[in-house]
């Protein structure tokens, strides 16, 4: 019987296949015909398109159509065919029939060309007052279109009226060949600009070069500032002489060595590898050189495991270490994807990290934990609460062995609080991925929201916040680092703007193209006095690995703020094959958790430039793993905190760890 059933089913399936193929071929006999072969639009132009379905004989059918686009950030297309161009470029619109069966469905694509607005102007940005014979300068131009947008995708043709006097290449390098007049024309579309000028006699007779490390040892990673001076035959400086810097490297290691240094046209140089470096400064047909020797930075120090508190039943999230009101030292760790636990530890003796209490709340993840400066109040965040109200729990930690709940606070925080900070009796609770609420906890049993900070940029989101000297530094993914005055004080490195918890005032921001900004940490360099905000990435660009360990990416961005309006990203710390998570700076040392890359301790003393990883600035590294851990024998480091001479860190897979950084046996840091 079963056999008969099988045979009849097979026959049935075969017949069904034939039928479906027939239906399908019927569908394929139809086609969608647009009312135009191609759509050309101007920016912001609106139009209506139409299309019809015709059968093999060319007869219009009754099939319904909808229109849409895969370029939603560039075109607005309504299902009935209204189109508006909101960005220039080449796009497409798809029309498809409304049918339930995929086999019956047909679609067609209409190409759309949204023209860029015509160029409105082209201008020279850096025409010098003098242009000396034999010298070369880089001419920069700016193109603006009629929409007022500065364009970098317009071909600017540069030409010289008298190439024998001054020639210019496609990259804007203008070279003087002999005395005389000339005109440079920059043409973009049908707009052009001209610069009439002349090559004057070159007064440069000689050049000198010096640097700020004269007589000092130069190590890899040290930023050396070279200054070349062009002089007349009388020895006077030609202050407007264009000077270009380059270098010749002779690294100690010639075994397939790659680029071993970098130099900026400001004269700043940094070596990544030890060796000899000859710096060449040229101005026209004159040049000068000087050679320096870069030695290994030798900042490596021993990093010793002191103790650990293994968490074997769930993942561990963030940590906070503090001195309790009884003078002993304690740590608080959160848990991730578990039972809503916050674990308290006695870490007075870091070699004997001992769990002393656990608070369990209705949550799956206690992502962040913070303790007030006086050591009396803690805040833990909630995500995955069964009632979906989430919010925060405020704890009385005056006795960490018997922690009490002051209050639960969920008002406007139901989207889940991911990170938090306690500052001056206020909790800054990053919630719903969109904003931070500012909650007064003068009375921790009766918290109340007094302010909110939320960006108003399109698609804004937020991940974390850190506060120093009354300024909140939040990390906002694609919106980058945002500094907000929530009551800045005299210790602040840059001036505030009269903000308060009730009236947070934005001061400045810095965003970078990847949109991976996950953490922000302000620090003032002890060795230089420079003020930086470190932007840390979190990224998993290789996607979710469903087969094994995940691979993170991203780095620490060193953003130098001389004022709030002109931040400059000057350096990075990037570990190949690993990605950053949380980090901390203390005393010109960066402690950074790198997920699968463990803990890295990095020397960030002195001026910073380039990739610090390449410069031998890594002091130490540590890969926590334990056979008794929740995920045994695997490192996934979450966050560090230097505390009283130790480094505490939490590891997602294994719990809390205490390390001791030993003394340097070599040259040390600045």
């Amino acid at each position, binding site marked *: 019987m079963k056999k008969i059933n099988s045979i009849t089913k097979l026959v049935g399936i075969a017949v069904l296949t034939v039928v479906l193929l027939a239906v399908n071929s019927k569908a394929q006999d139809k086609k969608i015909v647009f009312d135009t072969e191609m759509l050309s639009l101007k920016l912001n132009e609106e139009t209506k398109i139409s299309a019809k379905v015709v059968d093999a004989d060319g007869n219009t059918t009754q099939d319904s159509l909808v229109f849409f686009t895969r370029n939603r950030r560039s075109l607005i297309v309504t299902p009935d065919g209204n189109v508006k161009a909101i960005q220039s470029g080449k796009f497409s619109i798809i029309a498809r029939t409304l049918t339930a069966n995929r086999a019956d469905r047909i679609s067609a694509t209409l190409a759309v060309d949204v023209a860029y607005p015509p160029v409105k102007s082209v201008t020279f940005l850096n025409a010098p007052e003098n242009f000396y014979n034999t010298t070369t300068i880089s001419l920069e131009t700016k193109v603006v279109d009629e929409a007022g947008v500065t364009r970098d995708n317009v071909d600017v043709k540069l030409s010289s009226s008298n190439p024998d006097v001054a020639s210019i290449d496609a990259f804007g390098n203008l070279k003087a060949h002999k005395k005389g007049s000339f005109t440079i024309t920059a043409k973009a579309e049908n707009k052009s600009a001209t610069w009439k000028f002349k090559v004057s006699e070159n007064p440069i007779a000689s050049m000198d070069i010096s640097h700020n490390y004269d007589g000092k040892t130069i190590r890899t990673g040290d930023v050396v500032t070279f200054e070349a001076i062009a002089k007349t035959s009388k020895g006077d400086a030609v202050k407007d002489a264009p000077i270009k810097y380059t270098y010749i490297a002779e690294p100690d290691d010639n075994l397939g060595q790659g680029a071993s240094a970098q130099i900026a046209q400001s004269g700043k140089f940094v070596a990544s590898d030890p060796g000899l470096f000859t710096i060449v400064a040229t101005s026209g047909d004159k040049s000068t050189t000087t050679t320096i020797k870069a030695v290994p930075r030798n900042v490596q120090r021993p990093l010793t495991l002191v103790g650990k508190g293994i968490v074997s039943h769930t993942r561990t999230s963030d940590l906070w270490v503090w001195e309790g009101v009884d003078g002993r030292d304690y740590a608080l760790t959160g848990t991730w994807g578990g039972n809503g636990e916050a674990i308290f530890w006695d870490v007075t003796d870091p070699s004997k990290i001992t769990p002393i209490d656990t608070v369990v709340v209705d949550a799956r993840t206690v992502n962040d934990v913070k303790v007030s400066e006086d050591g009396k109040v803690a805040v833990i965040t909630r995500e995955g609460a069964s009632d979906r109200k989430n919010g925060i729990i405020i704890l009385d930690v005056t006795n960490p062995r018997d922690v009490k709940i002051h209050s639960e606070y969920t008002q406007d925080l139901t989207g889940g609080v991911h990170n938090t900070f306690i500052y001056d009796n206020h909790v800054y609770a990053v919630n719903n*991925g*969109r904003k931070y609420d500012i909650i007064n906890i003068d009375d921790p049993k009766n918290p109340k929201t007094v302010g909110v900070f939320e960006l108003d940029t399109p698609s804004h989101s937020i991940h974390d916040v850190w506060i120093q000297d009354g300024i909140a530094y939040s990390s906002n993914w694609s919106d980058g680092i945002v500094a907000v005055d929530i009551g800045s004080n005299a210790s602040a490195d840059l001036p505030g703007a009269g903000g308060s918890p009730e009236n947070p005032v934005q001061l400045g921001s810095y965003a970078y193209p990847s949109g991976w900004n996950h953490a922000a940490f302000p620090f003032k360099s002890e060795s230089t006095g420079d003020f930086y905000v470190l932007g840390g990435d979190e990224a*998993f660009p290789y996607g979710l690995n469903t087969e094994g360990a995940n691979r993170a990416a991203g780095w620490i961005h060193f953003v130098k703020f001389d004022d709030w309006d002109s931040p400059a990203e000057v350096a990075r710390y990037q570990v190949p094959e690993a990605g950053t998570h949380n980090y901390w700076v203390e005393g010109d040392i960066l402690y950074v958790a790198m997920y699968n890359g463990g803990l890295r301790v990095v020397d960030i003393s002195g001026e910073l430039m380039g990739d610090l990883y390449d410069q031998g600035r890594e002091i130490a590294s540590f890969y926590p793993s334990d056979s008794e851990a929740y995920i045994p024998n695997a490192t996934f480091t979450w966050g560090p905190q230097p505390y009283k001479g130790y480094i505490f860190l939490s590891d997602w897979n294994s719990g809390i760890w205490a390390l001791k950084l030993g003394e340097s046996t070599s040259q040390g840091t600045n």
Partner: protein
Amino acid sequence: MKNHKLFSILLSAILFFLLVPSASFSQDYYVYVAAESEDEVHLIHLDGKTNKAKIAKTIQVGRYPTETDGPHGINISLDGEYWFLSIAHGNPYGMLAKYKTGTDELVATTDLGMFPASMEISKSTGLLYVVNFNLHGDMVPSTVSVVDPDYMEVITDIKTGIMPHGSRITDDGTKQYHVSMMTDELYEINTAGLNVNRTLSLKKNAMKMDGMEDHSDDSKEHKENHEKHMKDGTHEEHSNKENEMKEDHSGHDMDGMKKDSGMKMMHAKPEVKPTWADPHPTKPLVYVAGNGSDEIIEIDTEKWAVTRRFKSGKAPYNLEVSHDGKILVASYKGEGATGIFDLESGKEIAKVKNSRKVTHGVAISSDNRYAFLSVEGIGGEPGSVDIIDLRTNERIAVVETGKQAGGIVFWKQVAP
């Protein structure tokens, strides 16, 4: 035309020939369930012969290994070839993910609005309609995203009420129903016209609001509601921020797009808090879970009026009408139980205790024999799929899942 008819008859005969014998011998049942706090989807297998069930497969989902992405709604394509999953969390928007059934490989994703949730594909248009629940956002109107499931592109976003949930479509595919939780309304979408046909207040003293073309902020319906609130004084309860209506920009933060002006409007405090809507398979009826009023509400879509209200257990959340239209199974989120209703009498004929608290979703097998209930659990305890035999109304199996089991969908029933 004649050929087409012949094909249809032949096709029906073949399908009958193939499916009817299979149904009578089918014993293996498969459902997909999403574990929202585990970022996993489980394929659950029930052996109908032994009533033993287990996890057949676990699929990791989401984008970030170190963030909870929150898989929430799940459904199957009309031909059973793909399953679709809404991922609730993002930066800031959620997304729709498409997987191949069987191999469970990720095929494509597309961004949606804030906290996308339940969804279904229309048998009429072949398009997928997913509500952007915006569970944790401001109390502002949200959208239903309409997605082409082949191209995995959003075709349009249809403006709807505040915290829309429970996207279910009539058997003929022409009408999509969902509820606006915070305005106590049922929404009917014309799946081909891609617009809101009409809305219905689900409150006990509700006014009938039909013939509405567009639920824009300045629409007649809003004005009437507003006037009503002003008259009965309910506006005084809503002077806080939660009730300021602003336009939700979910999925629409594109340069140059026209946006409404962000008109502020008061809304009455929701009484019904509807969380799900499911149309009857053959009759012009829609059933709604009154999560806040502890009732199941029957709406006659021809009269466009509430016709019956069934008292339910505490906080009904999801519901499903059986494929023969005889019974309705509702999850009682507030008491960790499942209610089974006879739709003719409107009586709860059984209440089945679930294996843990926070009952979430319902899926009924295609032969109406079993109901599969997802149960979230609390904190670190596993979620579960509780399986009820609808012939005896008894729980016959429990399968523990990842934490916070939520979205659930019946996939297939096959002979072993």
